């Protein structure tokens, strides 16, 4: 990683920042923060859209427009040069509508623009207030902004003509805007929603953008639910959330994360070709991801704002470098947050997960609340020795009930073990790079408070066994005490390189057993997600 540049460092590309908007907008004095959108750059005048099928405006905020003609307002940082440039568009979430939330992501837009990405942050403030269920409307607004960029890209002689790469788009949302980007990813493929046509005939759509990834910062989940059921994000999905979040305090986005790119029980070896990645940031709160919003936590509870913004720049910067600029080496940061240790604020603690598009499940646990089994098509058996292994629908992160089964492992004696014996002819481990497991500890009494949990991963082929301490792959942090409510159990992805097994004499073609041996802590409770071979 030493050859890589810190993705939070400004690049060398010069850029200009423009306001875009749809004047005339007679904002009253109480909404004077929005007056900037009444004088956009002359080249960046937009239109209005009708979101009345999705959302009403708060009746106690004196917006100078109705829900049938809301403006497309925003700030955009445009790199100098011919392009075409990838596009990243940020959206805020719910907040006091009398404060303009939009500029709160300019610090990220400027970073991305300096690396050659057109980066915008959009005005969805008119949907803010004491309302609920409007996140489909936020998604439509987000997609309509993308459409505006497509229009400019296709319009000579607009300054953005031919400069927007519409097949490299990253949409990022915070809070309710974070839930909305998931819906936007889903809506992007639709021709209609209910009775509302998205084909352009009634003003909305068509969309069908090339979304490289969807990123959610401390999102909500299921405040809006399509008639087809909870939204399953079809694009690659990135999630970041803070342990001290005192607004979205139940890590709602983890439910979105678990629904995205999960195992298809009918075709467990088939992947949809997308990745998902998650970063849980100890001591980050909700509001400090937006540079405008005042911190919602008392002084001293959360990390300093500058640290939190730096973390956002490092990790969202790495995501953008990887998916928008084809710098695949930055995927290492998504695969393992340890790759960014030199760039993150000193002492910051994280838990991360990553699932590659190329994965082969050995044990996914989604067959049902049965005794643990090895997952088809892998043939094998599961045995326990002094370990109570129970499949559970435990809400690891609080909030609504989960639909993802995890394996709860409890031991009370050194040397206890969970053993998976597999038929090597059914497990093509040699085709993959790491063996991957998700594990996290709880705050139950048999885990020592504030101490990392640990165990040994034993992998055998024939007579050769590799014994790898989990702690050599990653720390299994004790859960950070939340501002209120139960602590979240966030599993850490452990990636054991197959190469390392080979160095220990294990033959991946003849891999016969994988064991979690609890020989490093006398007692404990951990939750395990899926075990897979991956890339």
């Amino acid at each position, binding site marked *: 990683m030493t050859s890589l540049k810190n993705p939070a460092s400004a690049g060398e590309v010069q850029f200009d920042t423009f306001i875009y908007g749809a004047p005339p907008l007679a904002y009253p004095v109480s909404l004077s923060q929005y007056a900037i959108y009444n004088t956009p750059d002359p080249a960046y005048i937009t239109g209005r859209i*009708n979101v*009345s*099928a999705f*959302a*009403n*405006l*708060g*009746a*106690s*905020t004196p917006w100078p427009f109705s*829900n*049938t003609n809301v403006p497309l307002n925003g700030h955009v940082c445009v790199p100098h040069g011919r392009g075409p440039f990838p596009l990243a568009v940020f959206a805020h*979430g*719910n*907040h*006091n*509508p009398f404060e303009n939330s939009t500029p709160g992501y300019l610090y990220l837009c400027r970073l991305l623009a300096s690396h050659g990405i057109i980066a915008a942050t959009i005005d969805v403030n008119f949907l*803010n*207030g*004491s*309302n*609920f*269920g*409007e996140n489909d409307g936020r998604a439509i607004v987000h997609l309509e902004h993308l459409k505006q960029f497509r229009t400019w890209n296709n319009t000579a002689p607009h300054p953005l003509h031919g400069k927007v790469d519409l097949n490299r788009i990253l949409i990022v949302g915070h*809070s*309710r805007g974070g839930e909305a980007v998931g819906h936007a990813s889903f809506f992007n493929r639709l021709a209609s929603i*209910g*009775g*509302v046509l998205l084909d352009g005939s009634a003003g909305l759509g068509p969309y069908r953008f090339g979304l490289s990834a969807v990123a959610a910062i*401390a999102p*909500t989940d299921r*405040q*809006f*639910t399509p008639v087809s059921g909870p939204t399953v994000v079809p694009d690659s999905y990135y999630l970041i959330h803070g342990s001290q979040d*005192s*607004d*979205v*305090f*139940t890590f709602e986005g983890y439910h979105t994360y678990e629904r995205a790119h999960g195992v298809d029980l009918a075709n467990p070896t088939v992947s949809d070709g997308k990745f998902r990645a998650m970063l849980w940031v100890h001591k980050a709160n*909700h509001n400090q991801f937006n540079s405008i919003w005042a911190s*919602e*936590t*008392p002084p001293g*509870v959360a990390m300093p704002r500058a640290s939190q913004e730096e973390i956002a720049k490092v990790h969202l910067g790495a995501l953008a470098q990887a998916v928008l600029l084809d710098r695949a080496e930055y995927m290492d940061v998504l695969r393992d947050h340890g790759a960014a240790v030199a760039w993150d604020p000193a002492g910051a603690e994280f838990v991360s997960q990553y699932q590659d598009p190329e994965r082969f499940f050995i044990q996914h646990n989604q067959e049902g609340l049965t005794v643990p089994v090895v997952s088809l098509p892998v043939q094998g058996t599961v045995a326990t020795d002094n370990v109570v292994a129970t499949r559970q629908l435990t809400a690891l992160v*609080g*909030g*609504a*009930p989960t639909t993802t089964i995890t394996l709860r492992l409890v031991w009370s004696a050194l040397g206890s073990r969970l053993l998976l014996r597999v038929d090597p002819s059914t497990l093509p481990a040699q085709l993959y790079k790491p063996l991957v497991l998700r594990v996290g500890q709880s705050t139950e009494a048999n885990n020592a408070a504030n101490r990392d949990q640990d165990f040994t991963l034993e992998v055998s082929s024939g007579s050769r066994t590799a014994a790898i301490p989990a702690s050599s792959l990653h720390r299994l942090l004790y859960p950070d005490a939340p*501002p*209120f*409510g139960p602590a979240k159990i966030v599993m850490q992805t452990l990636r054991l390189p197959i190469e390392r097994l080979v160095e220990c004499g294990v033959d991946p073609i003849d891999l016969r057993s994988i064991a979690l041996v609890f020989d490093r802590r006398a007692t404990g409770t951990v939750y395990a997600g899926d075990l897979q071979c991956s890339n």
Partner: protein
Amino acid sequence: MQPPKPPKITAVEVIAAQPTEADSAAIAHLSAELNRSLPQVVNVVKVRLKAKPPATSMGWALYVNDVLIPKYWEYNDGIYFTVLDPQFFAEHKGKRLRFSQNGVDFYDSGVKLPAPAAASKSKSKAAKSTTARLPLQADVLK
């Protein structure tokens, strides 16, 4: 820090109002789905609150007993939602309004959805008068 507390409801009323263009489209779509004709009326359920919930992201989902109200909006004295199908009142009359943040833990407001008479009255009025005689939603929400 303390977890957020649910809003306190002080009163609920149902007022029949003119549908907006979007409402009319939604009524047509719903009529087709249900295969029965729905009146061109929007019942605005105004939920007066002691204090409106803060404009944060987590928010409080509103339920009538176990039925989630999918969307609600803000007006000066509280929140409101709209009902397009009068059958909703027939099925949920007298049931309690509840708040939840996770669909598991509920906070009973102690306030019930207005009795069917109130809703029926509105519906009956609507039937007797033309839609145009109904108030605009904007006026109902003042």
